């Protein structure tokens, strides 16, 4: 039986519903030793800002039980280098869509990047609103519904590509943020970003990360991610890219059945560089085994 794995996210067709979580995959070059990037539905790049960011001091990561915390600090070379180097690199893989993740310290930063990308051959933009809003005393854009709606509107006014708003899970009510993004005109949502965590090295009596706190990711957080994807799927009409601890095809299918139209794989790449292809393959096999002709038929099938 042939299974349709193609999905359409806000008007952009992916060959399959699997991309990578921003920051875990660079711009693909390093993983191309293990993964044919043409096989991925999309590549989501590491976050890029208007200017180069130095990132945080080290240690930047620490392993936790069934996961990890990271505080890379969104180190990136800035949009100019990115446009000159990373986009042309990814254009060598015509079968995969290009999603550029955008970060900033102020709305102006984001706007600059989005405008700069307007005429670049990228397919979608993912806006990371978990960055601290420096002008507002450092609370993340994504933790205030008004800020979410405002920044979404700004992005939509300038973007020529569909805009995916990436939501932070560190909130009381994720549906409030999702609705705010939808109200601001978001074309799609991706969730969840990492949960804020901390690890202490009791023998050294110090924080495991130089930044003290870091973003918790990995299978440890999957139940929180699936719950939020389900809640958001009930609350908004726009498509959802689900992520948070996907290690295998069954994990990915949990997100799909909870209401995600596509999924991102992040931390699992560190544990198994081939995981993305294994997940795509496993999802296809599941459909064949269960007589599912179209992966889209499984989206939100558990209610």
């Amino acid at each position, binding site marked *: 039986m042939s299974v349709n794995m193609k999905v359409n996210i806000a008007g952009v067709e992916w060959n399959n519903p699997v991309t990578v979580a921003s920051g875990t995959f660079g711009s693909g070059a390093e993983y191309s030793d293990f993964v044919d990037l043409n096989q991925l539905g999309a590549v989501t790049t590491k976050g890029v800002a208007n200017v180069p960011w130095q990132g945080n001091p080290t*240690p930047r990561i620490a392993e936790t039980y069934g996961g990890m915390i990271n505080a890379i600090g969104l180190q990136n070379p800035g949009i100019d280098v990115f446009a000159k180097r990373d986009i042309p690199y990814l254009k060598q893989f015509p079968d995969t869509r290009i999603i550029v993740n955008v970060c900033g310290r102020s709305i102006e930063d984001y706007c600059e990047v989005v405008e700069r990308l307007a005429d670049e051959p990228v397919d979608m933009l993912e806006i990371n609103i978990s960055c601290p809003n420096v002008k507002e005393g450092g609370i993340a854009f994504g933790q205030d519904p008004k800020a979410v709606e405002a920044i979404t509107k700004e992005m939509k006014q300038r973007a020529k590509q569909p805009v995916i708003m990436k939501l932070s899970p560190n909130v009381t009510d994720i549906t409030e943020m999702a609705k705010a993004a939808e109200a601001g005109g978001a074309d799609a949502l991706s969730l969840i970003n990492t949960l804020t965590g901390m690890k202490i090295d009791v023998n050294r009596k110090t924080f495991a990360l130089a930044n003290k706190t870091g973003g918790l990711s990995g299978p440890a957080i999957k139940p929180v991610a699936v719950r939020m994807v389900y809640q958001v799927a009930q609350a908004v009409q726009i498509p959802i890219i689900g992520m948070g601890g996907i290690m295998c095809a069954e994990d990915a299918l949990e997100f799909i059945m909870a209401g995600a139209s596509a999924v991102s794989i992040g*931390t699992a790449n560190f544990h198994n560089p081939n995981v993305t292809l294994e997940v795509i393959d496993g999802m296809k096999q599941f459909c064949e085994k269960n007589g599912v002709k179209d992966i889209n038929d499984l989206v939100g099938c558990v209610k």
Partner: protein
Amino acid sequence: MSDKVIKNVVITSMVKVTDGIYSMWIKDKDLACNAKPGQFVSLYCKEGSQLLPRPISICEIDRENETLRLVYRVVGKGTKEFSKMNAGDTIRVMGPLGNGFTLEGKKAILIGGGIGIPPMLELAKSLDCEVQVVLGYRNNDLFLKDEFTPYGKVIVSTEDGSVGTKGNVIDAIREKDVQGDIIFACGPTPMLRGVKAYAQEKGLKAQLSLEEKMACGIGACLACVCQSKEVDSHTHVKNKRICKDGPVFYAEEVEL
């Protein structure tokens, strides 16, 4: 195209070298053929609560028998899991990773401190110039020391003064007035700082092998960066990736 591989390989030997330090030989043609001194491999845990691979430096390369030797210290659950494995078991490994040492110089000073000693062994075997080895230990537990003697003069420093020069590797080099035209060093950052200062003082070239907590091990995640003197050509900030651009850097390239 890269010569990196990821696969399950067979452990051909696992022995305890001394308290908390183990020596593992793994068999794989690709790894043995492609590996260079100063490179490392990533070992994966079977235990599912530990997802990140453990970077382990390459201690010896036996191309004839297609095996690699990894000498590692048990510092956590992951390395503890490895230490409990036996010859015949399989282990998942990715490598070879990193740049490795550049083989150069006429009279080399190899400096290893603590668990920075193992990578110096393959280097000592690979250099075709006069080799002097300076090893820094905590105490008279001189693991691997005797294995260096075939390749050059071995000088020892111990923190407690029980053997050789009391103090660190630089103290030993000064005391024994070790001469050379290049330094290769691996060890804790404070030691590398001392080595860098000594190299500058003597106007010596120095290759330093750095260490940092890693996630992907292949340069994608930017976890294991070190401060570089100049803006790095890849990151376009003053950061170099230890797992990909390193772990070996010329002393003047990096801020320690």
